[in-house]
C-alpha cells in the first residue's frame, strides 16, 4: 500500500471497504425510482413502431392513408422521411477494413430482419398508435434470407447490403509469437470446433425514451436510459441536424442495460426525428416482444481451434479461425463484430503460450444487431478454458494440473503474447484456493462412488482475467469528474458514469466522502445528464467504474480538499498542512475544538461577508476536476468452480455447488461486488442452460416472448459462494472492476462440469447451449 491510499480522512465516517447501504435503495424500494416510462409531459404523444414480419424483403410500397385517418393519430413517418430528412449514422470505433452502409432510423428500401422498423406512428395514446400500425398497408417482395454462417458466406447467395459485394463485413488476422514453429515441434495437436449460440442482454426495463423538442427555444432534450449519454447526444444531433449545443440527453433510473444500452439505436433516431418534426414531446416504450426481436443480441460465434501440446501438458500454441454473425445492421458506435480483435488479443489469457494466431471473419445476416453484452469478448475465455479441459482429457491429466503447468509468471517477467502486462494477476492463487474450498480431491473420490451407483455428477472449473481496466481498456479513454462544494457545505460530484444498477451513487460517494473526510450522506453524485457531466464516449461499460471513475473521483475530491484546506487555513490563520478534515469538521491536527465546517468555508468563498472587513475568498475555487487513465492497467482475476448432477431421465442439470474465488483488489463495497459477480454468474447459468435467441435457417425469429426466451429464476440459479482475495495492485487506485467477470467465466465452469459429468458417455461439449434435450442427446439417452 502506498502512502496515497491512507491520505483519505480517517474519522468514523470512513466507508470504503464496507457494505455501505445504497443511496439508490431509498427510492427504488419505495416505488419512487424514475424510469423512462414514468415521465409525463403536457402535450406528450405516444409512438409505436410498425415492424417487418419478414427477414429479408424489398419494400415495394407503403400506404399510410387509412392509418392517418384514425382519430388520435398525429403523424406517421417512414423510411422515405428518414432518407430525405436525416443523415445516416455510422460506427465510430470500427476496426480498419470494416464495411457497412450508414444506418437510418427506419428501413428505407428493404427490410433486413424480422422486426426491422418500417414506420413510426405517433398518436394521442399508445393504444391508438398500435391500432394505426394495423392499418398501414405495405407491399413486400420477399427475398431469400440469410440465417446461417454458411448462407452468409456463400458467394452466390443473397446479400444483406447490395452495395457491398459480399456479406463479409470484416476480415482480420492476428498472429503473435512462434505459431508455426510450435505446431511443427508439438508432440500432439488437439482440435475442436466450439460454437457459442446467440443470446441477448434482456434488461428488465427495455429501451425507450421521451423525445422533447421545443420549437420555441429550439432546445432538444432526449430523456432515455443510456449507458452513453454523450455519444447518443452526438448521434442525435448529427442525424437530425440539431445543433449540438441545443441537444441534451438526460437519464433517470435505468432498469438494467448489460451493454445493450451503450449503443445509439435506430429507434432513438426515429423517435427523436418524430418529435423534432412534430414539435411535440413523444414517448416510446419498447414492449417485450419488440425487445427480444429487435433491440440487440449477442454472442453468435464459431471457432475452429487447434492446440499444439506436449504430453506433459505444456501448451505451446493455439491457432484457429473464427466467424461471427453481426446480424443485419452494425451496432453504433461500437460495431459488435469489432470484438474479434479483442478476442484474438485476449485469448492467451493468463497462460504462457509461445504462439497464438486467429483469423476472423465477421458476416452479416438477416438477424438482429449483434451488440455488446457483458464481457463481449467472452468467446475467447470460453473456448480457451474448454480447450484446456479437452487437452487434459486427451492427455489423461487433471485439468487443474494443465492449468498449473501453463500459467504465466505474474512477476512482470512475462507479458501476454499480444503485449499486455500480466503483472500481479492472481489466477494461480485463485485456482488453488477454489480447489481447496471446493474440496476437489474429496469430490473426485465421491464422484467415482456416485458413478458406481449410476449417478451422473461432474466437477468443472475455469480461470479468467478481466481487463478492469485492462491495458486495452484504459487507453485514450480517460475518465473525468468534477467535484464542487455547495453553499451548504454538501459535496457534489459529477461523473461520466451512467449507472444502471451498479450503485455508483453509493460507491462513488464512498470514495469522495472518505477522501474529503465528510459523512457519506453529505455527498451527492450527479450523472446521466449531458448538460452537467463531463464528456465521455463510453459512460458506463467495460467495467470502467471501479478503477477509472473511482480513481477520477478520488483525484477530483483530493484536489478540492486541498482547496478547502487552503481557504480554511486563511480563515483560521493556520498552515494548510496543519489542518485535517474529520467527520465533516476542518480543524488543526489534534485540536478538534477549533473548527470550521465546509459550509462556513463555502460562505466565505461564495458570498460577500456581512462584515466587509473580511474579503471574499475567491481563490482557490471550490470546484476541482480531474481525469484518470487507469495507470498501467491491471486485471481482476478469478476461478469459478461448479459441481453438477444431471438427471438422465429429464436432462435437467442441477448445480449442487457454485463457488467463486476472485480478486478485484480492494473492494469499495463488498455487497456491490458480490451483486455484480452473482448477477453475472446467473446470466451464465441462463446462457448455458436456458437462453437462446433462436432463428430458423430462414432467419425467422422463434423466441419473441418470455415463454420462448427463458430467463433463469430463483429456482434455477443456485446459491453462489464467493471468497475474495484482495491483492492490491501496484497502483495508487486499488479498486478493479468486476462487472464482466461473472458472465465471462461462468459458461466455461458450467460446461466443463457438464462435460465431466457426461464423460462416461463419451460426450464432447462443443456447443455452449445445453438445454435438456441436448443433454439427453449427449448422454445418448435419445
Amino acid at each position: 500500500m502506498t502512502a496515497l491510499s491512507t491520505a483519505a480522512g480517517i474519522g468514523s465516517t470512513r466507508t470504503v471497504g464496507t457494505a455501505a447501504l445504497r443511496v439508490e435503495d431509498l427510492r427504488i424500494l419505495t416505488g419512487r425510482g424514475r424510469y423512462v416510462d414514468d415521465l409525463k409531459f403536457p402535450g406528450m404523444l405516444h409512438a409505436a413502431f410498425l415492424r417487418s414480419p419478414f427477414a429479408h424483403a424489398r419494400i415495394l410500397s407503403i400506404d399510410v392513408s387509412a392509418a392517418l385517418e384514425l382519430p388520435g393519430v398525429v403523424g406517421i413517418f417512414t423510411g422515405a422521411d428518414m432518407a430525405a430528412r436525416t443523415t445516416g449514422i455510422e460506427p465510430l470505433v470500427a476496426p480498419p477494413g470494416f464495411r457497412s452502409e450508414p444506418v437510418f432510423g427506419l428501413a428505407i428500401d428493404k427490410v433486413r430482419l424480422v422486426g426491422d422498423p418500417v414506420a413510426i406512428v405517433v398518436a394521442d395514446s399508445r393504444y391508438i398508435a398500435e391500432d394505426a400500425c394495423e392499418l398501414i398497408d405495405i407491399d413486400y417482395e420477399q427475398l431469400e434470407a440469410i440465417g446461417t454462417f454458411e448462407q452468409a458466406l456463400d458467394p452466390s447467395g443473397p446479400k444483406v447490403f447490395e452495395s457491398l459485394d459480399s456479406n463479409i463485413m470484416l476480415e482480420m488476422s492476428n498472429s503473435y509469437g512462434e505459431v508455426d514453429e510450435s505446431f511443427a515441434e508439438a508432440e500432439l495437436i488437439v482440435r475442436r470446433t466450439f460454437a457459442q449460440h446467440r443470446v441477448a442482454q434482456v434488461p428488465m426495463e427495455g429501451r425507450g425514451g421521451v423525445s422533447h423538442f421545443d420549437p420555441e427555444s429550439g432546445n432538444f432534450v432526449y430523456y432515455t436510459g443510456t449507458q452513453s449519454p454523450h455519444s447518443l447526444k452526438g448521434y442525435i444531433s448529427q442525424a437530425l441536424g440539431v445543433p449540438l449545443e441545443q441537444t441534451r440527453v438526460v437519464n433517470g433510473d435505468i432498469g438494467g442495460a448489460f451493454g445493450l444500452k451503450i449503443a445509439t439505436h435506430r429507434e432513438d433516431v426515429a423517435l427523436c426525428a418524430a418529435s423534432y418534426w412534430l414539435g411535440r414531446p413523444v414517448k416510446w416504450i419498447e414492449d417485450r416482444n419488440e425487445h427480444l426481436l429487435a433491440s440487440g443480441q449477442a454472442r453468435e460465434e464459431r471457432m475452429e481451434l487447434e492446440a499444439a501440446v506436449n504430453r506433459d501438458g505444456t501448451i505451446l500454441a493455439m491457432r484457429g479461425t473464427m466467424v461471427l454473425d453481426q446480424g443485419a445492421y452494425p451496432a453504433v458506435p461500437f460495431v459488435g463484430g469489432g470484438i474479434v480483435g479483442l478476442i484474438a488479443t485476449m485469448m492467451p489469457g493468463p497462460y504462457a503460450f509461445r504462439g497464438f494466431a486467429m483469423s476472423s471473419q465477421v458476416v452479416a445476416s438477416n438477424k438482429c444487431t449483434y451488440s455488446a453484452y457483458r464481457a463481449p469478448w467472452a468467446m475467447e475465455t470460453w473456448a480457451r478454458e474448454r480447450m484446456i479441459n479437452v487437452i487434459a482429457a486427451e492427455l489423461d491429466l487433471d485439468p487443474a494440473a494443465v492449468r498449473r503447468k501453463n500459467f504465466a509468471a505474474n512477476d512482470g517477467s512475462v507479458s501476454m503474447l499480444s503485449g499486455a502486462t500480466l503483472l500481479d494477476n492472481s489466477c494461480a492463487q485463485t485456482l488453488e484456493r477454489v480447489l481447496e474450498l471446493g474440496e476437489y480431491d474429496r469430490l473426485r473420490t465421491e464422484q467415482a462412488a456416485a458413478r458406481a451407483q449410476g449417478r451422473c455428477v461432474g466437477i468443472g472449473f475455469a480461470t479468467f482475467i478481466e481487463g478492469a481496466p485492462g491495458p486495452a481498456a484504459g487507453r485514450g479513454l480517460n475518465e473525468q469528474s468534477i467535484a464542487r462544494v455547495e453553499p451548504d457545505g454538501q459535496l457534489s460530484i459529477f461523473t461520466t458514469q451512467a449507472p444502471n444498477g451498479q450503485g455508483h451513487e453509493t460507491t462513488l460517494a464512498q470514495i469522495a466522502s472518505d477522501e474529503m473526510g465528510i459523512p457519506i450522506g453529505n455527498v451527492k453524485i450527479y450523472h446521466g445528464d449531458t448538460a452537467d457531466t463531463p464528456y465521455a464516449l463510453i459512460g458506463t461499460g467495460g467495467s470502467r467504474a471501479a478503477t477509472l471513475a473511482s480513481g477520477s473521483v478520488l483525484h477530483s475530491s483530493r484536489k478540492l480538499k486541498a482547496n478547502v484546506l487552503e481557504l480554511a487555513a486563511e480563515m483560521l490563520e493556520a498552515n494548510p498542512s496543519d489542518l485535517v478534515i474529520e467527520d465533516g469538521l476542518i480543524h488543526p491536527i489534534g485540536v478538534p475544538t477549533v473548527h470550521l465546517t465546509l459550509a462556513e468555508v463555502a460562505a466565505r468563498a461564495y458570498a460577500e461577508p456581512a462584515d466587509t472587513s473580511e474579503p471574499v475568498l475567491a481563490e482557490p475555487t471550490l470546484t476541482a476536476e480531474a481525469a484518470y487513465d487507469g495507470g498501467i492497467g491491471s486485471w481482476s482475476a478469478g476461478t469459478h468452480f461448479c459441481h453438477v448432477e444431471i438427471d438422465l431421465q429429464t436432462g435437467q442439470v442441477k448445480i449442487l455447488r457454485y463457488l467463486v474465488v476472485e480478486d478485484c483488489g480492494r473492494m469499495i463495497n463488498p455487497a456491490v461486488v458480490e451483486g455484480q459477480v452473482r448477477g453475472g454468474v446467473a446470466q451464465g447459468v441462463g446462457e448455458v442452460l436456458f437462453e437462446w435467441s433462436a432463428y430458423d435457417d430462414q432467419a425467422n425469429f422463434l423466441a419473441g416472448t418470455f415463454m420462448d426466451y427463458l430467463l433463469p429464476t430463483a429456482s434455477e440459479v443456485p446459491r453462489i459462494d464467493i471468497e475474495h482475495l484482495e491483492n492490491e495492485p501496484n497502483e495508487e487506485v486499488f479498486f478493479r472492476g468486476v462487472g464482466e467477470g461473472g458472465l465471462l467465466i461462468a459458461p466455461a465452469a458450467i460446461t466443463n462440469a457438464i462435460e465431466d459429468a457426461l464423460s462416461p458417455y463419451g460426450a464432447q461439449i462443443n456447443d455452449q447451449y445445453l438445454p435438456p434435450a441436448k443433454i439427453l442427446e449427449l448422454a445418448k439417452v435419445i
Partner: protein
Amino acid sequence: MTTTPTTQSVQLTVNGVARSGETENRKTLVDFLRDDLELTGTHVGCEHGVCGACTILLDGEPVRSCLMLAVQANGRSLETIEGLGSPDDLSPLQQAFRESHGFQCGFCTPGFVMTTVALLRENPDPSEAEIRHCLSGNLCRCTGYQSIVEGVKSAALALQAGENR
C-alpha cells in the same frame, strides 16, 4: 377497430384511498394505475404475465396487473408499492431488503416486494426452498436472486420480532 373505444368508470381502493377514473374497456390495470392514477411504482416488464414486475395485491392476493383489465378491478381493493414505507420511513420489509443489498437496477423490485408482502402474510416463517419457489414467478436480471432471498429471510425475522406493519 376504427370505432371509438368504449369507456367505463372504475371505482376502487388503492392503498386505503378511494380512487376513481374513466377508462377504456381495453386498458390494462397496470396502465390505469401508472397513467391514470399516476402510481408509477408498479412496473411493466413483459406485458405477458411472465416477469412479475407488475405484481400488486388485489384484495390481498398477488396478481399480475398486466394481465387484468382496469375495469375488472372495479370495486376491489388494491395494494401497491407506494402503500408501504417512504424513503424517510422504510417498512421493516423494505429495510431488510436494503440491508441485504437485495436489488441493483430496481426495475424488478416493486414486483418482488409485493410478492414478498403476500408471502410473509401467508407464511411468516418460510424456508429457503419455499422462498425460492414463491419468488420464481418474478424475474430479476441483475442480482442472481441470492440477495433477494436473503432479504426475504431477514424480513421474515424482522416481522416475527414484532415490527409488523
